[in-house]
């Protein structure tokens, strides 16, 4: 264990190395580039490779290839780059490739303000790629949590053989904070399961009971077949309803049925709360300050903070809001994640509080919008 003073970007890079990252491919993009630059210096020292590609499309496909060569792989990007990565993300889901994408949100649409922050892309992360799937995305609110959730992102990606997204924003990645970093043995590191059957019996998409197939990689003698087409357990292309249904439902259900291993959240002052604010990422920092201030004035208000945006920790959300008369969802966008919150709080009064701010919404600005409902 050691304590360092780091930015969010450096903490993500350090978290990735703690998790066992060995291959990074990327394309420069503000505000994520420091992850790339930091890893370019540090990753080779732990036996890893860092390569800059011609675009984000090549970057994501290269890390998919590296993951199939048997190592932990990642890339980092921001909105415009993630848009280019979506076809690769869909591929990674289909062929069940563990990898991590560190997505640092900036303003949009389009080029927006590259150096400034926002939370516009939480729905793109969930729905951007084609086909039906479940996605896993974590949203840290501090530099420490950026480090911790990066490790968790790798662990979940290896556990379920899925791409995982670590979703931060420009404000967090340029913030300097104290980080406690873990040494070997001080944190659980998960590696993908390997086949236990003889090589000629191995089927690359035959799942265990947890719906996750053991993963043989290239060069291990299994003659693996990576297949982007709809495939059966051998990886053979099939055009029947039976195979399509079985495959798509397994890809979805391996996340749904293992949800307890994925979801993460934090609740503050919710036990007696008449009002609960739901907020995530950097916006939750201002909300936390506001909640404490209102508490000091006698307002029974609490905060529910999803750390896993996708899927949301719905049991904890429902519990946190059980006594609430009103639930506010504060976001640094036009109010998008509120719909996900509403899905689980059908009989509650859920109010969207969108506050666009190029850094983070201030407690005052949030209160000004909320005041009429308090």
């Amino acid at each position, binding site marked *: 264990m050691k304590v360092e003073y780091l930015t969010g970007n450096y903490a993500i890079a350090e978290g990735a190395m703690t998790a066992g990252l060995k291959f990074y491919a990327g394309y420069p993009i503000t505000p994520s580039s420091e992850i790339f630059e930091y890893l370019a210096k540090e990753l*080779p*020292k732990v036996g890893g490779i860092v390569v800059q590609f011609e675009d984000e*499309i*090549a970057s994501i*496909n290269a890390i998919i*290839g590296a993951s199939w060569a048997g190592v932990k792989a990642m890339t980092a990007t921001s909105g415009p780059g993630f848009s280019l990565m979506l076809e690769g993300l869909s591929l990674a889901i289909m062929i069940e490739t563990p990898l991590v994408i560190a997505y640092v949100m900036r303003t949009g649409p389009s080029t927006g303000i590259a150096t400034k922050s926002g939370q516009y892309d939480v729905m793109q992360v969930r729905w951007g790629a084609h086909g039906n799937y479940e996605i896993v995305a974590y949203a840290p609110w501090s530099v420490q949590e950026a480090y911790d959730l990066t490790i968790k992102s790798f662990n979940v990606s290896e556990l379920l053989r899925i791409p995982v997204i670590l979703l931060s924003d420009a404000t967090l990645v340029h913030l300097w904070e104290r980080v406690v970093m873990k040494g070997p043995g001080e944190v659980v590191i998960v590696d993908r399961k390997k086949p236990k059957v003889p090589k000629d019996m191995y089927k690359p998409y035959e799942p265990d009971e947890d719906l996750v197939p053991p993963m043989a990689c*290239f*060069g291990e003698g299994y003659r693996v*077949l990576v297949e982007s087409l709809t495939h059966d357990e051998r990886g053979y292309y099939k055009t029947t309803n039976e195979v399509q249904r079985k495959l798509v439902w397994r890809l979805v259900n391996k996340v749904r049925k293992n949800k307890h291993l994925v979801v993460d959240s934090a609740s503050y002052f919710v036990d007696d709360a008449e009002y609960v604010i739901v907020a995530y990422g950097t916006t939750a920092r201002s909300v936390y300050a506001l909640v404490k201030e209102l508490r000091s004035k006698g307002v029974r208000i609490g905060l529910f903070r999803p750390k896993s945006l996708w899927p949301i920790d719905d049991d904890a959300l429902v519990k946190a809001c059980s006594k609430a008369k009103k639930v506010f969802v504060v976001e640094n966008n036009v109010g998008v994640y509120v719909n996900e919150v509403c899905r689980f709080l059908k009989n509650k009064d859920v109010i969207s509080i969108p506050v666009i701010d190029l850094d983070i919404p201030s407690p005052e600005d949030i209160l000004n919008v909320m005041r009429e409902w308090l």
Partner: protein
Amino acid sequence: MSHPLDRYLRTDRLPHIWCPGCGIGIVVSAMLRAIDKHISEGHFSHDDVAVVSGIGCAARATLYLNFDSAHVIHGRAIPFAIGLKLVKPRLKVIVIGGDGDIAAIGGNHLLHAARRNVDLTVIMVNNMIYGMTGGQVAPTTPPTIYTTTTPYGNYEYPINVIKLLSALNTNYVARASITHPHLIERYIYKALSIEGLAFIEVLSTCPEVFGRHLGFKNAVEFFNKLKEMVRPYEKPPIERSDIVWGNEIVIGEYVINNREGFVRSVYKSLNKWCKG
């Protein structure tokens, strides 16, 4: 009864999807003979071979090959293959695909793989058309030809990938043709033994779609026309690499360089960096 090359095929998946008279089978069997020769000479083993492809008729080859193989997405076989190769340099990584997959949607990846001199063998089966999707214009389609998306005739000029890659000092650039299978085999055999990027364009016929557009009555007629145009040369000059339909088409080993391959450059730099 089994064929000596059956060990390299997932024979339970046959018959394949390629149309009668399609040239892709000639390319795949030449590739397997080249691989088999290396394996029998002890240069590498069956499990050291990996094949990566994108989407298209030629890319379907990976479905039938009994190697570690990946059938990924349209145009992206090369970046997938680079990630694979960098992590496991021991693997002989072959990318096979069509002209649309490799020169159009994947063109930028090809260009940068050549610039970096990545240690891959890239086989581009050039049938001058989008076959799988039903006969749309390709960046390799000769001018004035009818296609389903240029019903008035192709108004573009085709890309000459041989010339493009020669400008990037690629280590090995050759053009073969399905009319001369022994040369496909010879070039792929050579490609698999060199460092850096080896690119082989193989001219092929698509009798069902492109042949129909050109007015050929059957596959043999189309094949014979291609055979009539194609002429092999020893080390032909790059200026002779343009393809003008109806004129002589020059095949041969256009470029042989000896630049350091990407894998060696990367590992050398990183090792040096780590030693401070």
